[in-house]
C-alpha cells in the first residue's frame, strides 16, 4: 500500500509541472463544444420539430453527456502515449522497479493517478455546468463519480493495450475507430434511440452509453430505475481492465 502511494506521489509531482499541457483537451475543448453545440445548435433545435430533447433544452441534454465523454477522452489521452513513454521512451517504470517497488505498486499507482486525474477534470467540468445553468438538482453532483468510473472503465483496458505496444501506431487507430465514433454516436449528441437497432446494441455494450444515461438522469432528475445496470457495465470494464493491465504490464516488465 505504501509503495502504491509512492508511485502516486510521483505522478502528482510530475503533474504539478505539466498540468498546463492537458488543460486544453480536458477543459477548454469540452466547454467550446458546449457553447457551440449546446447554445448555438440548441437555438436551432428549439425552432425544430422536437424543440426539447428528453423534456429539456438541448444544452441541458448535451451537458451531462459531454461530461462523461470528456472522461473517456481524458482516459484515452492519459493511457496511450504517456504509458508508452513510461515503458519505453523515458523508462520510468524500469527506474521504479530498480527500487523496492513492485509491479503491483506501479499498477495501483497508475489506477490511483487516473482516478485523481479524472476527478480533477470532472469537478472542473461540473463547475462549468453550474455556471452554464444546466444543473438543477443536488443529486447532479453524483455525476462526478459516474464520470470517474467511466474514465477508469476506458482507461484501464487502454492501459492494458498500451503495455503490449512497442510502437505508437496503434493509438491513432483506437482514437479513430473507437473513441471518436463513441463520442459522436454514443448518445452524447442525440438520443441513442435514434440509431439503427444494431448500432444501439453495440452502443449499450460500451461503458460510455451507460455513463451518459446515468449522468443525464442525475442531471435532469428523471427515473434512475436502471442505475444498477448503468453502473454494472462500466464496473465490469474496470475489473477486466485491472486484470488485463496486471497481466500485460507484468509480461512487458518482467522478462
Amino acid at each position, binding site marked *: 500500500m505504501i509503495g502504491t502511494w509512492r508511485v502516486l506521489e510521483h505522478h502528482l509531482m510530475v503533474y504539478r509541472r505539466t498540468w498546463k499541457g492537458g488543460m486544453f*483537451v480536458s477543459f477548454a475543448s469540452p466547454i467550446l463544444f458546449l457553447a457551440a453545440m449546446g447554445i448555438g*445548435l440548441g437555438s*436551432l433545435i428549439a425552432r425544430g420539430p422536437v424543440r426539447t430533447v428528453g423534456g429539456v433544452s438541448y444544452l441541458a441534454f448535451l451537458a451531462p453527456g459531454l461530461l462523461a465523454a470528456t472522461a473517456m477522452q481524458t482516459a484515452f489521452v492519459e493511457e496511450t502515449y504517456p504509458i508508452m513513454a513510461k515503458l519505453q521512451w523515458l523508462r520510468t517504470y524500469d527506474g521504479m522497479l530498480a527500487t523496492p517497488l513492485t509491479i503491483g505498486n506501479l499498477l495501483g499507482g497508475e489506477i490511483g493517478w487516473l482516478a485523481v486525474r479524472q476527478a480533477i477534470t470532472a469537478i472542473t467540468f461540473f463547475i462549468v455546468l453550474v455556471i452554464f445553468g444546466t444543473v438543477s438538482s443536488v443529486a447532479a453532483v453524483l455525476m462526478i463519480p459516474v464520470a470517474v468510473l467511466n474514465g477508469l472503465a476506458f482507461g484501464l483496458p487502454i492501459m492494458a493495450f498500451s503495455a503490449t505496444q512497442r510502437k505508437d501506431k496503434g493509438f491513432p487507430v483506437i482514437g479513430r475507430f473507437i473513441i471518436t465514433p463513441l463520442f459522436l454516436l454514443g448518445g452524447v*449528441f442525440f438520443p441513442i434511440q435514434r440509431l439503427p437497432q444494431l448500432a444501439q446494441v453495440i452502443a449499450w455494450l460500451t461503458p460510455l452509453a451507460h455513463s451518459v444515461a446515468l449522468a443525464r438522469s442525475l442531471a435532469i432528475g428523471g427515473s434512475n430505475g436502471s442505475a444498477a445496470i448503468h453502473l454494472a457495465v462500466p464496473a465490469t470494464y474496470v475489473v477486466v481492465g485491472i486484470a488485463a493491465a496486471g497481466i500485460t504490464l507484468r509480461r512487458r516488465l518482467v522478462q
Partner: protein
Amino acid sequence: MIAILAGRRPAQVPAARRASHLVERNAILYRREWSLIVSGFFEPLLYLLAIGYGVGSLVGSAVTLNGHPIPYAAFVAPALMATSAMNGAVYETAFNFFYKLKYVKLYDAVLATPLGVADVALGEIVWALIRGTLYALGFLIVMAGLGLIASPWAILALPAAMLIGFTFAAVGTAASTFVRTWQDFDLVLIVMIPLFLFSATFYPITLYPGALQLVVQLTPLYHGVDLLRSLTTGSIGPGLVGDLVYLVVLGGAALLLAAVRLQRLLLK
C-alpha cells in the same frame, strides 16, 4: 571565383521537379501506411452521420437558405468538408513538418542534396494538397450518393477544397517554424478547435449577434465553409469573391512567411 558579401544570399526559386522528389518520398512511406490514408476518410463521414443525420433529426427543417428550408445534413456537409480540408492540411504541415524539421532532422539530409529550402516547402505543401484533394473527392462522392448536392456548381467544390487546403497548408507550414516544443501544439489546437466549432459550421452565421458575426467573418475557416456551402447548395452570390480573395491572400502571405522563416532556420 566571387567574393562573398555577408548575409547576401539570393532566394532560391523552387523547381517543381526537385520538389516532386519529396512528394515521392512521402508517397513511398504512405504506400505502406495506406490504412492511415483510408482512415482519414472516416472522421468527416462520422461527423456527417452523427451531426448531419443524428442531430439533424432534432433540427428538422429549421435551417433555411435564401428563404427555403434545406435538409440539415446538406447544410452541415460542406462545412465538414471545409473543416476536413483545414485539418488535413494543418496536420500534414504543422505537425509532420515540425516532426521532420526538429525531431528527425530529415530536412538536414534533404538539403545536402540538390533540393533547396523552397523545394522542401513546396514539396510538403503539394503533398498535403494531394492528400487533401483525395479526401475532398471521396467526401464529395459520398455527398452525391446521399443526395446532399443541390447544384451543378458543386463540381467546383473540388478545386475550392484544394484552395482551402493550400491556404491552411501554407499557414500550417509557417506556424510550424515558430513551434519550439510539442507543448506548443496545444496552441495550434486552441486555434483550430474554435475555428471548427464557430465558423458557421453547425448553424447559420445569422444566429450570432451582429458584432460576433463580424468577428467570425474575419476568420479563415468561415470563408472556406461559406465557399463550399455556396457551391454545393447552389446559392451563388458576390460573397464568393470575398471568400476567394481572403483565402488566396492569406495563403500567399503565409507561404511567403514560411519561406523566409525556413530559409533562416535551415541555413544558419
